[in-house]
Structure formats: C-alpha cells, structure tokens
C-alpha cells in the first residue's frame, strides 16, 4: 500500500517531467508558422492545382474559347453555372448561338472540377487566386466572360486527356 503510494507518486512526477521536457524542446524548435499575408509575394505556398475560383481565360484580343455548349452547366451538380446564350447573325448571315453571359456563383461552387473536366473546348480553368472574400453576397456572383468578348475562332484540335485534367498544364 505505502509502496504503491510512493512509487505511484514518483512515477507520476517523472511522467510529468518527461512531458514538460518535450514542450521545452518544442519551445526552441523552429516555428512552422507561415505568415500570410506578409508572405503573399514570397514564400506563400499554394499548389498550382489549387482550385480557388473559376475563370475563363481571355486572350489579348478579348476572345475566349467558350462555345456556350452548356455541357458545364448540365454537369455542375448544384447549378453554380449559368450559361446564357444569345443569338447573333454571322457574316454569312447564319443565325448562331453564342455566349452572352457566363454566370458563375463563387459562393455556391463546390470545386468538384467537373465543369473543367467536361468542357469540350477547355474554355474554363480554375485559378489559384484564393483572395475572394467580399462584403456582399452579390459580389460572389460573377460573370466570367468579359464585356464585349467573343468566341475565339480556332482550329479543332484535340488535346490529350492527361493535360486537360491537370489545370497547371494550361
């Protein structure tokens, strides 16, 4: 009984001291904290594959690749994307449906990547710009195609599957 009493006491104290030893060691180890936002121009780690917001790349002629085929819209599981078409008349006089507005609700997106994967013309990609917090809900509902942009005329060229699925290849 008394033996237990004291050996218990000493064992307990020893275990506590060992624990304190560990914290003591940690006190002097290098701190792992990454200092966002101070490091946002330098050491900030964001993977290239990070999906932060959907974007539609436009080239210097303000042209994008979206044919407004609505594949992304149907594939999106929760209706984040709305593709609004308009009908224009081409030079040959044919009526043609083109993209009017590409609406994307950042506040609703689940970043499942289905839209990008399934888009037949690779018109959209995810960017890793994660600084998107806003003060109002409406600000998160974005229009991805820029004002006055139009479809890029392009030769049909099928990209290999592998590249398509990895946005960093873009």
């Amino acid at each position: 009984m008394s033996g237990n009493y004291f050996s218990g006491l000493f064992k307990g104290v020893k275990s506590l001291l060992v624990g304190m030893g560990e914290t003591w060691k940690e006190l002097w180890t290098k701190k792992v904290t990454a200092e966002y936002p101070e490091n946002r121009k330098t050491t900030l780690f964001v993977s290239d594959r990070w999906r932060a917001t959907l974007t539609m790349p436009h080239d210097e002629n303000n042209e994008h690749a979206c044919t407004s085929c609505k594949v992304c819209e149907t594939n999106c599981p929760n209706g984040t994307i709305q593709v609004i078409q308009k009908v224009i008349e081409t030079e040959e006089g044919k009526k043609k449906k083109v993209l009017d507005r590409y609406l994307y609700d950042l506040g609703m997106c689940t970043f499942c990547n289905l839209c990008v994967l399934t888009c037949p013309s690779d018109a959209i990609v995810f960017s890793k710009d994660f600084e998107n917090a806003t003060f109002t809900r409406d600000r998160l509902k974005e229009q991805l195609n820029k004002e006055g942009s139009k479809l890029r005329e392009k030769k049909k060229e099928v990209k290999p599957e592998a590249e398509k699925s990895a946005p960093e290849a873009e």
Partner: protein
Amino acid sequence: MDVKDVKIKGIPYAEFKHNDYLEDYVKELQANGVNVVVSKLDELINWGRSNSMWPLIFATSCCGIEFMATAAAHHDIARFGMEVVRNSPRQSDVMIVAGTIVHKMAPLLKRVYDQMAEPKYVLAMGGCAISGGPFVDSYHVVEGVEKIVPVDVYVPGCPPRPESLFYGLMQLQRKVKLEQFFFNKER
C-alpha cells in the same frame, strides 16, 4: 477618415478586392459629418475592435475543420490576436459560421447570434454558409446564413483555405476600422 487610411499590414489597399463597397460606405458616413475629436476617438476604438476579434466558432462541418487548421501552428490565427476562442457568445465578437446550416440548426444559430454582445459581426465561411453550397437543393438546408442573421463578410471556398479565411478576416477588419462608434444610430 478616408478609406485609403485603412491600412492592413501586408496587403496594400489597392490589392484588396471589393474596395468600392468600403468607399461607398465612407461616403455615406462623411455625408453625415463627424467632428474631428470624435473621429479620433472612433479611430482608437475601431483599432481596438478590429485587432481584438474574439471568434465564436459556429462550426458544423468540414469548414470547421479548416478553421481548426487555421488556429493551428501552420497558419496561426493568433497572429491576428484572434486565437482567444470564446465558446460563450457573451464574450465573443465575431461569429464565424463554418459549415452547413440546416433547418434544425437555424433557430440555434439565431439564438446564439442574438445572445452575442454588441458589437458583433458575422463571417460566413464556405459555400454552405454563404448559399447552401453543394446542398442548395436539399430539403433541409438553409440557403445561406444571411437568411437568418446579417452577414458582414463572405469567404467563398469549399472549404476556403486558411489564407482565404485570413483574407476574409482582414476584410472584416477593414470594415470595422471604418465604423462609426459615437452618434451611430444603427448599432
């Protein structure tokens, strides 16, 4: 006070998004006209408030785990002085709604918000809190906490990465720094 004076360490004013909101806000304030002494005092108070936001974590699901990561060593929310997580709504300043809010939870969210002491802010973290996110179409999910309580800052993502949350918190700080404390009828 001018919007441009609202400085946040690490990010210049111009690189923040959604500045126009703050500019409008300030214009509105200036229209009312405030005298200088008061505004200096206001500045001090807002400085205190914005730098000492003790969060109440209304964490219901995945985003809550990301908040935990935010509080842990790698990201360390303590740098902003916000690691003092108070579990009692009476003592906290900003409610971070992290996760889906469902119908059964709605009364609780409202109640906890109501029980918070003024001044109080709400930050909606993640798609679910903003709009219902992946579950918008569900029968039991609230389409965004704004339906229940007023939201000050929305941080999109599913889940937002810790840095996104920091960014959102800094946005909130900016908003708080512009607030008017004296002679304010709203709050």
